[in-house]
């Protein structure tokens, strides 16, 4: 199996994930990883499914694997923040989000998770700043989505 074929497997998995068919998505991601375990995207995508299904420790492990393969993978840092938040490891989650945002400042989810974690840590003022940034980005995304929807 070539890496191109592995990409095809990931695409199939992603198509299921978009429809929240997590079980099916996981089957395709597992297949892709068995053929190409050096693809950070595959570990990241599987981590997303683990998060959606509450398997946070496995999600965290997959994010770390993705980051090992690519230190500058912003999405994997953001997802790691999410997994750490779910595990109530707020300080570490904030650190992961900061790293994610240094690589991609337009990641609304990372800003939001950073805000939520700061809020949980009682750092309310910093949390509001992060929420504000997250909201701005979310609104921009929403407006773009509405535009697409209305053609």
């Amino acid at each position, binding site marked *: 199996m070539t890496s191109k074929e592995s990409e095809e497997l990931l695409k199939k998995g992603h198509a299921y994930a*978009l*429809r*929240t*068919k*997590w*079980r099916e998505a*996981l089957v395709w991601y597992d297949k892709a990883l068995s053929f190409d375990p050096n693809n950070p995207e595959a570990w990241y995508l599987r981590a997303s499914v683990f998060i*959606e*299904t*509450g398997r946070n420790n496995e999600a965290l492990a997959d994010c770390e694997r993705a980051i090992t393969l690519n230190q500058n993978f912003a999405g994997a840092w953001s997802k790691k923040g*999410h997994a750490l*938040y*779910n595990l109530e490891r707020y300080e570490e989650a904030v650190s992961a989000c900061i790293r994610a945002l240094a690589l991609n400042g337009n990641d*609304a*989810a990372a*800003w*939001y*998770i950073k*805000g*939520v974690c700061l*809020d*949980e840590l009682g750092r309310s003022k910093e949390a*509001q700043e992060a*929420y*504000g940034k*997250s*909201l*701005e980005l*979310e*609104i*921009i*995304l*929403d*407006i773009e*989505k*509405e535009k697409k929807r209305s053609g």
Partner: protein
Amino acid sequence: MSEMKTEMPLSKPVRLLISQTENLLDTEISLIRNPEADPNGTLVDMYTYNVERNIILLPAHYIGLLKDFLIARHCVHLLIKGSAAKKSRYQVCSFTGDSMYRGIHQIYIDALKDEAKKDKKLPVIKLIRMLGILYSNVNDEINELPWNPITNASVYHRMPPLRKTQLYYLMKEGKMDMDAMMEYESVIPRRYFVLSKSMFYARDQYLAKTLPADELMPVVNIPQMKKFNHLEVKEMLTTRWTHTSWYQSRIFGDTMLEIMEKYLQNIDWNAEPGLDYFHEIYKTGVKMTDHFLSYMSMKGWFVWESPKHLLEAREKKAAYEFGALKKIFGDLIEKSAIDGDTET
């Protein structure tokens, strides 16, 4: 592996509100993100539907405060429904064969008046089909709209961190409601078009009066929202209406607003939020709805009944509609007229 998702990052005030709602109602709330969910989110609750747990369906692309705002609004609505169910009876505007006849008959008379003034008449078959559709539309609106200003005002007062989000959402929702039905403007009787818009107009005006505050200045630094800069919510919610063709009929909207204010001004939005408190809000909403129906001369159109009654009425809608049309048109009407198969 379940497709359900109940664990997702939530801002602290929303997490606390969910927990408070679950405790007060002794129930569970599941949050599910779905790519095909309605942009307003959907509350599928055990007081309305035959389900074992309450579900809030959210659009998948809402990941942050937009999601939190929708959750907050649905939680408040759930508290209102649940408190009514626990303290007395939770009822909605349902319909029967007789009440549907009264509604459809009135719409028909109004439609005939409008048609008499038109150069281009509506084909009879279209007019007949419009009667039932419009009746159902009014039923849906009267069951939803009065609760919108209530839940919004409650979220505004109880959850200050969500105010900027609320501002954006109200602008968006108001625009959607303003645009709704525009393509049917020439089909439905003018009276109903005006009344429907009046309810939305009153909602916007009420919220503009209730919500203005410094925190509600539009979110800056968003290029797409630049045109709203330096406007307060009031201006934003009101100015848009002045640019619509509907605006000349705003006298109805102003009266609707007076009705809304009459009932909602007595609610202490910051009072201790217990079951009694939300039950009182429910009763206020019911009274306000009755007043709307009375003002719109629709008093006999609907009956206050259980949500189960409404669900069953919807299943029987075609039969009720056919019965109503038979009463109006006699043997001229055939079943196919409402099924859309052949000409009458």
